[in-house]
């Protein structure tokens, strides 16, 4: 189990770096799919097979397909480095490192290395997740879905041809 976790985690990190560093958009998109797949493996190891499968179906199988399709339609072959702003050039690195240190610090304080992993009060099966989504958190869940619907309507209106 631990070996599988380290393989999946390493794969996720390497593929994640490849998303940023690759110059060809299709390769970046494919790397992102690998990241999502590796995360699904980690969910499986955590005992949440339902979340893992949904992760693959929704993110890797639906959303990323749209990304890949758009890239194919634009036939974007190679990214040309444009003139970046000098501000971003000098501040980007330090800000990134600061953010990373901050997150690591927070995680360390929350879960010291010696402590056993916290007991999860949640089964990973579909029934309990459905219970959470449609009973406990039904209002935020529905509000989110309406938000997405509104965004979709907005996109349709904006893209519509003027009469």
């Amino acid at each position: 189990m631990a070996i599988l976790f380290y393989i999946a985690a390493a794969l996720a990190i390497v593929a994640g770096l490849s998303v940023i560093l690759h110059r060809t958009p299709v390769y970046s998109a494919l790397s992102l799919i690998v990241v999502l797949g590796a995360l699904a493996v980690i969910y499986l190891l955590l005992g949440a097979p339902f979340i893992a499968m949904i992760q693959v179906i929704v993110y890797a199988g639906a959303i990323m397909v749209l990304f890949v399709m758009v890239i194919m339609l634009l036939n974007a072959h190679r990214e040309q480095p444009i003139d970046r702003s000098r501000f971003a050039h000098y501040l980007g690195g330090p800000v990134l490192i600061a953010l990373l240190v901050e997150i690591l610090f927070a995680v360390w304080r929350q879960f010291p290395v010696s402590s056993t992993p916290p007991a999860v009060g949640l089964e990973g099966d579909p029934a309990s997740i459905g219970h959470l989504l449609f009973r406990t958190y039904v209002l935020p869940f529905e509000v989110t879905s309406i938000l997405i619907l509104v965004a979709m309507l907005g996109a349709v209106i904006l893209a519509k041809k003027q009469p």
Partner: protein
Amino acid sequence: MDTASSLGFFVMVTIIKVVVVMLVLLTVIAYLTWLERKVVAHIQSRWGPYLTGPHGLLQPVADGLKFLFKEDIVPLEVDRLIYWLAPFLAFTLACLSIAVIPFGAHYQFHGHELFQLTDLNVGLLFVFAVTSLGVYSIALAGWSSNSKYPLLGGLRSSAQMISYEISLSLAVIGVLMISGTLSLRGIVEQQAWLWESGGLGILPHWNLFLQPVGFICYFTAAVAETNRVPFDLPEGETELVGGFHTEYSSFKFALFFLSEYANMITVSCLATLLFFGGWLGPVFGPGWLRLLLPVLWFFLKVFCFLFFYIWMRGTLPRFRYDQLMAFGWKFLLPLALLNILVTGLIMTWVG
């Protein structure tokens, strides 16, 4: 038995099971191509393959050898890595979903399920996850070939597969509501008894009779999802030369070809399990026959679906592209949604 040797035993049994299942799957795929050529030929009043072996039975072997020894032509301007990756991805994903398909009754052999590679409690979702990834192989093959016909074929197929995947998933929700489990073995075992009244005690309790609309939605979407006639727009020989695999030759083309048949087998297996009671059927006789008869029933039911696929190919013309999209979004999707609504209402009333 200590842990190490039981782990070794587990690995050994699993490997044997995987090898046997793969061999059976590949043989079935090979002879499915033969069956398709024969059946379509007879529909069109021809003989089909006849010269290699009795009734052309060795034709798949000859075809396989031909594919292996043909020159592998790689066009100059392709994207090498993705061009190579796409066919292998297609074939791997097509064969992967067979891992959760149960093809015989529950039987433990030294603590191992004999007629199923692994029983996931989210087996159905696993099949859908693998199917949803299958789009990439076609889209990437079309893109990486760097040629206009494959690109058009790839784009068409991704649009088509995304559209029909939604109907495919929604169509089975009715079945899931009735059975209350995502495990494929569990769904079949729900159908294990006969109708008490009205069916004269012989009509099996298949989900087909509870979910006729769901079944029609499922099967229509499944045909589109596997890119078969009348929804074979991604290939569309008359418009796109050969669609996404125009620039592929030799063994890589064979992999695409085989994965299409593997996908047909997968969706036929799923239709059998979800709507036609899987391996259930009359079982009698001595112990070994009781064990093997369910497997026979399962294979027979799947065979009927595969025959139906071929029959349709011999009968129906191809849709136009806008008709295909309109049918998927404006008819099939609302129908599947309505089916869920009606199923829910009836379940609430009946209790």
